[in-house]
């Protein structure tokens, strides 16, 4: 991983989350799903890192650990506190008081604007709740703050929205409320888990632009979780691609899209639909879906689906993620230290025959 950097807002090292597979009430579980297995990355202040991958690759679990909705099995997470400028060890945040303090600094925006709000509370209650929990301000001050935020997220005029209920709002409006709620404490770091995937294209862009504007205005750092690489391209400065609990490739957005090195990233990119009927897509080189990483073998996680695998991939342990030049990190035995490809160029047709 990159050497520790002075202005890192978030530093994650060797993060692991293993879920036991339930075997019944009294039997101790011996099988574990390695949902996140040795993930390390840094996010600089004001930067937005995209975490992409297929369902089940561990991207949401990673995000949940960063906001402490799940506890890590192993590894460390440091997040810089905006007020004190100290790196806080998230795994050491344990008591209620510490957690309360931690949540001032770190917030999450969830995927589904329909499921993530209490239907019996008004918009004012929903957005002001963090202030109530943290015991900040009088009712009047809170109202003022909520009005400011509603204006900030583009719900204008804000007053009519205050005492409405979530069901009275459209999906796009609800997601704006979710963003307002996440930002009411002025957090320095926000985990956004597919915040636009439930929205229509036309509304999606305005929410994406809103999040970018707020990052600019308030200096928010994002971990942006998405399965959609086209969205990640617009939202993120850097992209990390996850596969079965591991980051297999990470680099600056345009560099990674123009020059993908890991076979999985290449397959993923070639499968993304392109809004251009004249576009001629390259063959997708891999088949099948993602399995669950139950007690995974030590070899490369991608081995079973990789069309390029050679002897080394079958005998060596999972390749290390390291910089192949210009901040482009790849975990593959077949990619050389300066990014050149050592594998064969077999096509998918040869593989099938």
């Amino acid at each position, binding site marked *: 991983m990159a050497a520790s950097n002075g202005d890192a807002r978030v530093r994650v090292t060797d993060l692991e989350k293993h879920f036991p597979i339930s075997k019944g009430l009294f039997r101790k579980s011996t099988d574990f799903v390695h949902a996140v297995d040795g993930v390390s990355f840094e996010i600089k202040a004001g930067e937005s890192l995209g975490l992409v991958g297929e*369902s089940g690759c561990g991207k949401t679990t990673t995000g949940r650990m960063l906001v402490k909705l799940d506890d890590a099995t192993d590894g460390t997470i440091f997040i810089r506190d905006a007020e004190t400028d100290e790196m806080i060890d998230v795994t050491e945040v344990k008591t209620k008081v510490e957690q309360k303090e931690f949540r001032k600094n770190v917030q999450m925006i969830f995927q589904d604007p329909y499921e993530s709000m209490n239907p019996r509370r008004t918009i004012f209650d929903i957005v002001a709740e963090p202030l109530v929990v943290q015991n900040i301000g009088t009712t009047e001050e809170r109202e003022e703050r909520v009005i400011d935020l509603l204006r900030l997220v583009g719900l204008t005029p804000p007053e009519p929205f205050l005492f409405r209920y979530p069901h009275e709002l459209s999906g796009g409006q609800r997601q704006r409320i979710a963003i307002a709620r996440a930002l009411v404490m002025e957090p320095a770091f926000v985990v956004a888990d597919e915040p636009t995937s439930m929205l*229509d294209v036309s509304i999606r862009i305005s929410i994406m632009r809103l999040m970018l504007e707020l990052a600019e205005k308030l200096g928010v750092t994002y971990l942006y979780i998405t*399965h959609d690489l086209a969205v990640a391209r*617009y939202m993120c400065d850097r992209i990390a691609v996850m596969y079965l609990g591991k980051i297999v490739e990470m680099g600056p*957005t345009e560099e990674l899209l123009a020059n993908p090195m890991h076979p999985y990233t290449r397959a*993923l990119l070639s499968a993304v639909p*392109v809004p251009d009927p004249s576009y001629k897509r390259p063959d*997708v080189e891999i088949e099948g*879906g993602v399995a669950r990483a139950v007690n995974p073998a030590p070899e490369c996680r991608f081995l079973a689906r990789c069309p390029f695998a050679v002897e080394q991939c079958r005998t060596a342990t999972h390749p290390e993620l390291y910089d192949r030049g210009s901040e482009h990190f790849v975990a593959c035995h077949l990619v050389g230290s300066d990014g050149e490809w050592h594998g064969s160029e077999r096509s998918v047709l040869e593989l099938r025959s």
Partner: protein
Amino acid sequence: MTDTRTRSSRESILEVKNLVMNYELKDGGMVSAVEDVSFELKKGQSLGLVGESGCGKTSVALTLLQLQAANARVLGGEINLDGINLLELSPEEMRQHRWTDISMVFQGAMNSWNPVYTVGEQIREAMDLHWDPKPTAAEAYEKIVELFNLVGINPEMIERYPHEFSGGMKQRAVIAMALSCDPKVIIADEPTTALDVIVQEQILEELKKIQDELDMSIIYISHDIAVIAEITDLMGVMYAGKLVEIGPTAELFAKPRHPYTWLILSSTPSITGPRRALAPLEGEPPNLLDPPSGCRFHPRCPFATDKCSQEEPPLSEIGEGHMIACWNHEQVPVTLATAEDDSRSANGSQ
């Protein structure tokens, strides 16, 4: 991409004329869900219907199959499938056409398999109901093997239960089921929405292959315009219950003429090409209990004039097979809209 021109001389298989469908509410209000929709589909052609949620895409599909909700009222129009107007048929007559002439892959259908029957048994059930005469066990088995091969599932899976299938496999099996009675037209409502991109790509390839091999006519419904770009010959854009533009997919992408199509394309991110600053589409779709006067898009349209709020533009032809409902389509720029400011590119991304 198959050549649309060679297909334009072919026979028409499905013709929808001036279809109007409303949902009646308990209080007597009428939701104008489908308003004056017309299009034609030729044999072996694929049509994509795109639009925001609630624009009437799925309502059109359900009406084509006469499976619309109990409170739906078809107030006018014709649905001519191979010369027969489906709207004039009795429910029993319609039942005979459904599945054998026109079938559908429903949205989220991969999650509707019955867990206690094998997938083969469930496909067999559809065949028993719709084949005339009923297939023998051997015939049914042979057909399912053929279908499984066609959609790319190992025929050994026939005797397996749905939980033994992955998400992509379940969706393939749903497509096999929709093909089980050799329909002339298939409607696929968001066939790949819940799937990961790699699996999605494989299923779209499979569907394209089926269209070519069986000379099948397919109507795709999707909110994902990139998917429509990949697989369709024709594209129809719906807004608030109306078809606002329809034409050859390649032409609509190259030169969108309706302001709504233009804005939708302008706001679609892509991983290819230069990174454009995406233009947002302001506002929200109208309430169809009380749709806007004149053109339904005029409150959100950057080119709207007084005429737009008063008179409804008819769907008229502006090129071969390219129809559009807009008074001011000549105002629509040739290049896509871009946003004035784009904070991230200004931040200095590579």
